[in-house]
């Protein structure tokens, strides 16, 4: 698995992907920080943190779209799948590499509360819960992106489908569906992936929310493994 992580990180940083990802995240958050903290003189980082999940939805597909689609189109999957390494090690390796790049961006964003702490009191507890929430949300979104990448040979198709799927999940978080059927409403609320994040956002760590994100991550990573194993037999 280490070899896979190392290779993926090398690709991320040898190509513009990781740099663009981090730069866009920093630009957007920097813009909001300037507008809603520096200009107004507000010490709460809530505005930036509130807008970031939407940026993730747009940007995470950039990290995940090529992971399996490109291997397939370049036929390098023939190397991976005929080597004595498990498919699950390959999938987890790619997942971890994407989470590392994502994590670097999240850690860099700590610069905003640190700047604010020079001028006023910062609610570190809330900053921390937000960061934990970011990691859990990011991991879940990445696992969904990886799964979609394993479905196609074309990385741009994978990227566009991932953005579409994540957008739907994002939009469903903001509304509560009342279809008249309780079960449908419940499923819809599970698909609304940011609902759980809202509680991290206001500073609450709820075990159910943590498990929600971890289980989404696990399910999609396992689905990817299953999908790749399955394709061999097809």
């Amino acid at each position, binding site marked *: 698995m280490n070899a896979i992580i190392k*290779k993926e990180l090398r690709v991320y940083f040898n190509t513009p992907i990781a740099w663009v990802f981090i730069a866009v995240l920093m630009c957007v958050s920097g813009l909001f920080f300037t507008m809603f903290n520096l200009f107004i003189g507000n010490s709460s980082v809530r505005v930036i943190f509130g807008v970031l999940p939407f940026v993730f939805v747009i940007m995470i597909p950039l990290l995940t779209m090529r992971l399996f689609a490109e291997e397939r189109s370049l*036929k*390098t999957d*023939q*190397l991976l799948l*005929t080597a004595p*390494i498990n498919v699950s090690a390959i999938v987890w390796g790619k997942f971890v590499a994407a989470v590392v790049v994502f994590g670097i961006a999240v850690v860099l964003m700590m610069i905003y509360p640190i700047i604010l702490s020079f001028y006023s009191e910062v609610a570190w507890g809330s900053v921390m819960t937000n960061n934990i929430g970011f990691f859990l949300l990011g991991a879940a979104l990445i696992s969904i992106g990886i799964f979609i990448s394993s479905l196609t040979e074309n990385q741009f198709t994978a990227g566009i489908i991932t953005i579409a799927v994540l957008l739907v999940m994002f939009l469903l978080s903001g509304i509560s569906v009342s279809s008249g059927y309780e079960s449908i409403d419940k499923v819809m609320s599970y698909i609304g992936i940011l609902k759980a994040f809202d509680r991290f956002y206001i500073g609450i760590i709820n075990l159910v929310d943590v498990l929600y994100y971890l289980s989404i991550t696990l399910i999609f990573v396992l689905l990817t493994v299953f999908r790749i194993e399955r394709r*061999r037999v097809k």
Partner: protein
Amino acid sequence: MIKVKNLTKKYGSKTVLNDVSFTINQGEILGFLGPNGAGKSTTMNIMTGYIAATSGSVEIDGIDIMDDAKAYKKKIGYLPEIPPLYNDMTVAEYMEFVCGIKYADTSCIDKILEEVRITDVKDRLIKNLSKGYRQRVGIAQALVGDPDLLILDEPTVGLDPMQIIDIRNVISELGKKKTLFISSHILSEISQVCDRVIIINKGKLVAEDTPKNLATLVSGKNKYSVCIEGGKEKIEKLLSSIQGIERFEEKASSEAGSCEYIIYAKNGVDIRKSLFKAVAVNDDMAILMFKTFDVTLEDIFISLTEEKGGEKE
């Protein structure tokens, strides 16, 4: 050492491989011939674990891929038809990565690069390498982990003649140490390096033998090409009078005052002496050119695939 038993692969209702069985013995170089689309790559992909067979089994030294995929895959090095290279890596980085996923020590890299003669491009990006070099990096990758068996899918396809000679040299060097399974549709190449050949067409094995035995299999008739100086009528009369000749066909002659023929001798009869003597007694005739047609793998291949293919349809 490798036993392929009753491999069948179906994509939907289309049967790509139909009950293919063969063995590869320790230390031999086995050639795998067939036209494009015959099922060569499919067979190799199944043997290396890239895809699964619909039915049938493959085992290497008694290990079935279904039972212990890891131990099985460690014994095989595979060069697919398109070498699986990452363009944005240098050769050294790539080899390091391959060592990682094959659980091999990176100390073997220098030796392998030396062996396939790519030490000089070690620090270059793979995307900047020529096709011949890329192919060699592909072979280098297959050698990582010191596998007993190397499976090479069309290793010389798309290379220029110099590069082909290069790769062929590398392959015959490797053949001294490893068991090789090489596919190709270029028949002369296989007959040069292989101890034994299997031929596949439309998903079915049609022949399995040494290149030499296969040649005798098809060479029912001995074929000669001659150019004789003299009058056409007289020459043809003479040829008809020679006992061992079954029939002859006239060919356009390149020299004025002479005639060229393709002569088919009767089975097992050597007509060379009698033809020479018969011509020699005529003062106005002389043999200008006389050569035998060797049966090439091309002939075997065409006759086998056409026959069996024709049968099926």
